[in-house]
């Protein structure tokens, strides 16, 4: 069987592992915090989404490089 495509996609898949684990950790901590202290939700929410955004940046760079660096 013949498989077409670019190895870049495998690289992107690998880079997404890190982002996935990181986002999971951020939200695990956020849920933990809110479960223990529900009134802290307003304070924790922006921090959680900032953590999401910063962690996600790595996966985004992976996606972009998988397009930019030629097949």
């Amino acid at each position, binding site marked *: *069987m013949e498989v*077409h495509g670019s190895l870049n996609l495998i690289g992107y898949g690998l880079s997404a592992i890190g982002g996935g684990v990181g986002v999971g950790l951020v939200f695990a901590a956020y849920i933990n915090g809110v479960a223990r202290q529900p009134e802290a939700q307003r304070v924790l929410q*922006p921090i959680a*989404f*900032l953590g999401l*955004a910063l962690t996600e*940046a790595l996966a985004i760079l992976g*996606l*972009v490089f998988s397009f930019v660096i030629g097949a």
Partner: protein
Amino acid sequence: MPNDGHLQRGNALIALALPAETENGSFEAPSLEDLHLPNIIPWMGEGAGFSKQMLLVLLSVVLISWFFVAAARRGKLVPGKFQFLGEFGYGFVRNSVGKDVIGERDFKPFVPLLVSLFFFILVNNLFGSIPLIQLPTTSHVGTCYALAGIVYVFWIGLGLRKHGLRYFKVATVPSGVPKAILPLIVLIEIISTFFVRPITHSLRLFATMLSGHLIIALSAAGTAYLFLDADGPLKALGVLTFAGGVGMYLFEILIQVLQAYVFVLLTAIYIQGSLAEDH
């Protein structure tokens, strides 16, 4: 709507699922070229003309201004449906983004910027989930570069106005770091603040919108292929891709709202960073 007629490359994943269909009439996944429709009014080279995205940007401006003018006209003490929606959206950005992040003391001048950014991005993202339009403007990277560029110039200008040239020291030299590793930290700070920050700020929005759009296009193309071209029992699998497509469509609405929120939240954090006294 992508169909299998004008699609170019084969897809390894689908080829695994459809071993009988590799030669003729095989499934071909939608590619990036299929998502960028030809320009409505062509001008000069490719990508320079007046495209559907630009039309949608104009439409979004008209929609947002109409909505807020209609919501703010005849303001009543007990708000009607329209006024409530407008006030709810405005209050959300003002309080949970502006006030909570920038701080009670000096968030007021930035509320108009944050509110207009939020609603512009929200409407342009949601275009991806409105039937017949089905194209998030922000899935074209130029839109996101422009938006993030405005914010980039804005927070650097803000820092310069507040601190003068000392701003670059405030932004890059953290306090309480041992002298030995200070040069390394400063280098990392310069790269991450002034180079990587605007890039990720724009590409985060672009990449999530583009990939969401691609997933929906892929499940639509897969459903069409399985229902129309696949033979016998394979047709039944179309139900699965269709259900998956509907699920992703609903998930995509959540992502579109979330990304508008994240973009504005980061804008507020950058503004707060420019106003802060030390690193």
